[in-house]
């Protein structure tokens, strides 16, 4: 089958001018290439088994536990520490100084001394130091209303209310998952070649999946009874995400390119399928129904976002009808074309749906979603070739008018208050002179203007070093077409929430629940396999999985 599915000539990849616009990125859905999904697929393929060698949790729910799993020939252990947290200290923000629970993903199996070290350090999070044996550092706070409800129900011999489980979706939400050397933990380079966690954010996703198991065990311990597996499966792990996630997409252009290119290549492959087998077609129908159920479950307080969800709900039945009666010739391409008549949210949901039944031609693309070599060197021979490259690849920045106040209203910065990333108003707030360099569009336009009449590029670069960032971005985009968000990130109209959703969808997040234009909660691993599911068909069949009693 793979021989039949090259991305050309019938349907190529969707162009960056379409895919890399913020409003479309902000409509992203998880796919079978999302990192958590890739991880659980790998765990299942290896027949990985999660063990819990240490459970030192008291009757009050405080103490520590250790979980260990073997993956790719290495053992990884989650050390989980649960402590009392006064309600007045429970905040999801970076500026928090205490949490309900803290975690370290450890390289190997920790001995008693190492467990004691981690138990002392992890509750301090950023204020402590860690070693290269510590791969990921994280923390999570209880969803107070659901955690208490589940414990109380279990204590009285009942199962929790399925509606409440669905409405919240998790017992705890992580408020940070740190990897790659932060606070002394291991650099990603130390584990980047390890089978199973070589993928983007794989160690972080492994941590999150193991934390989810700890939250399940903790309520069962406190409640003195076991959760119904169907309800337990529907209890994912929450996450609260703010502006800190957004700059990553700008500062890692090759990685962003590789993520998007993998997804778009997958889409082109399935669009180029000349026909579907009856089995493949039959698979799409229940997936459409799963989408319908997911949309019904997905309720958010924000009226604007709820209206978007409502619109997808209204549009989906027509697409489901189209799927029932797909044309014989190039049916997935026809489905994607049909979706273009609907909202961007529905279009992107349809993209995720289209990839789902075709693991045999999609899943291998996950291997390319890393960045082993970094950005390319600039290869411009002269100023004119650089200027032409800007006109070809960054044409969209040349139309922007940065003399307009609205086009430069925002500035991104890092607060001295626990280094929390924030967004300011350039004309009202102090600190714009300390702006973080996320103004790529403005910088590239400035480079293009400065290059006019330049004959010696080398001399220009030596004399005008302030343009080097823009030059590097042009070099990168010339060879990595999906490396740039094609919008002005300092414009008044820029919505950081779109960047957050794009990245979180690549992680595998669902049930996006924006709390403002720069802050969102999400659910990860809802419907994901429990440890005991890893050897079953359920292990790789949980895209948008809803509650099934």
């Amino acid at each position: 089958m793979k021989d039949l599915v090259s991305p050309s000539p019938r349907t190529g990849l969707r162009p960056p001018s379409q895919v890399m616009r913020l409003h479309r990125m902000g409509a992203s859905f998880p796919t079978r290439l999302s990192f958590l999904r890739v991880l659980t697929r790998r765990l299942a393929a290896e027949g990985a088994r999660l063990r819990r060698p240490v459970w030192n949790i008291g009757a009050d729910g405080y103490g520590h536990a250790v979980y260990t799993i073997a993956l790719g020939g290495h053992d990884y252990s989650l050390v989980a520490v649960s402590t009392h947290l006064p309600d007045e200290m429970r905040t999801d923000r970076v500026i928090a100084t205490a949490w309900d629970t803290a975690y370290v993903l450890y390289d190997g199996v920790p001995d008693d001394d190492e467990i004691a070290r981690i138990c002392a350090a992890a509750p301090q999070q950023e204020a402590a130091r860690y070693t290269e044996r510590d791969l990921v550092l994280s923390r999570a706070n209880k969803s107070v209303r659901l955690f208490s409800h589940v414990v109380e129900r279990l204590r009285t011999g009942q199962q929790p209310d399925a509606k409440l489980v669905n409405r919240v979706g998790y017992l705890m939400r992580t408020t940070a998952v740190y990897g790659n050397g932060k606070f002394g933990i291991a650099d990603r380079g130390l584990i980047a070649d390890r089978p199973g966690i070589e993928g983007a954010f794989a160690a972080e996703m492994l941590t999150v999946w193991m934390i989810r198991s700890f939250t399940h065990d903790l309520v069962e311990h406190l409640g003195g009874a076991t959760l119904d597996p169907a309800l337990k499966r529907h209890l994912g792990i929450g996450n609260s995400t703010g502006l800190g996630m957004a700059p990553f997409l700008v500062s890692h252009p090759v990685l962003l390119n590789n993520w998007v290119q993998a997804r778009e290549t997958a889409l082109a492959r399935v669009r180029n399928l000349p026909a579907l087998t009856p089995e493949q077609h039959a698979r799409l129908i229940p997936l459409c129904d799963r989408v319908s159920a997911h949309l019904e479950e997905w309720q958010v307080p924000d009226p604007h976002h709820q209206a978007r969800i409502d619109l997808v709900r209204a549009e989906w039945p027509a697409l489901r009808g189209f799927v029932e009666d797909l044309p014989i010739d190039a049916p997935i391409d026809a489905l994607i074309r049909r979706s273009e008549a609907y909202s961007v949210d529905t279009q992107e949901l349809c993209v995720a749906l289209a990839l789902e039944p075709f693991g045999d031609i999609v899943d291998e693309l996950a291997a390319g979603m890393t960045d082993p070599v970094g950005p390319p060197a600039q290869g411009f021979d002269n100023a004119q070739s650089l200027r032409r490259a800007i006109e070809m690849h960054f044409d969209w920045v040349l139309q922007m008018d940065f003399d307009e106040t609205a086009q430069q209203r925002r500035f991104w910065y890092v607060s001295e208050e626990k280094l929390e990333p924030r967004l300011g108003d350039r004309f009202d707030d102090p600190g714009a002179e300390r702006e973080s360099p996320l103004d790529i569009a403005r910088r590239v336009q400035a480079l293009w203007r400065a290059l006019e009449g330049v004959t010696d590029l080398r001399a220009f670069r030596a004399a005008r070093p302030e343009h080097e960032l823009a030059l590097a971005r042009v070099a990168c985009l010339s060879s990595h077409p999906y490396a740039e968000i094609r919008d002005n990130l300092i414009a008044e109209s820029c919505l950081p929430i779109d960047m957050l959703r794009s990245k979180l969808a690549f992680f595998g997040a669902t049930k996006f629940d924006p709390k403002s234009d720069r802050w969102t909660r999400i659910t990860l691993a809802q419907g994901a396999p429990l440890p005991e599911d890893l050897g079953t068909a359920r292990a790789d069949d949980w895209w948008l999985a809803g509650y099934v009693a």
Partner: protein
Amino acid sequence: MSYSANEIAALAQKAARGAGFPPQQAQVFGAATVQFLAGGGEAQALLDALADPADSPILRLPLLVEDIQRAVGLAGPQITLTLQPGDEALAPAYARLAAVPITRTEVGQSEDGLPQLCLETDPNRDRAAPLPPRIEASAPLVDHLSILAARTYVPASDSSRSAGAGAGDIDND
């Protein structure tokens, strides 16, 4: 004290930005600082480089990295490049950022007294030597870098705290 490579790179990058260097050169300086310290370099060379954002190897040496990549392609595995005076201490660390597998670096002098960087590469290797798991950095160096890095942080204020992040302070739901 020992650090991860990413910690050192991020801190040095922010320090360079805080010292007044442009962001791209600051980023490259961050990566070069890791190589420099991993190779046992003395902290003073880093501090000297950060002193003057108008005249510094931090501005000049990123171009050297490109020169190395071009020169290796044109001239083979052994090359010699002329440096600007003052760049010799950090040049080997920057050279290791080039996308070529460097096996030896040596700083010498040309006949007319200019510093030179001599490099050997191994065409049979496809990647640079891996970094050690920890990078040693002295407390005075880290303190100095931290002071410079702090110049990129915006002072805290109530309005920044309430509006800048777009989130509430308490999450007990």
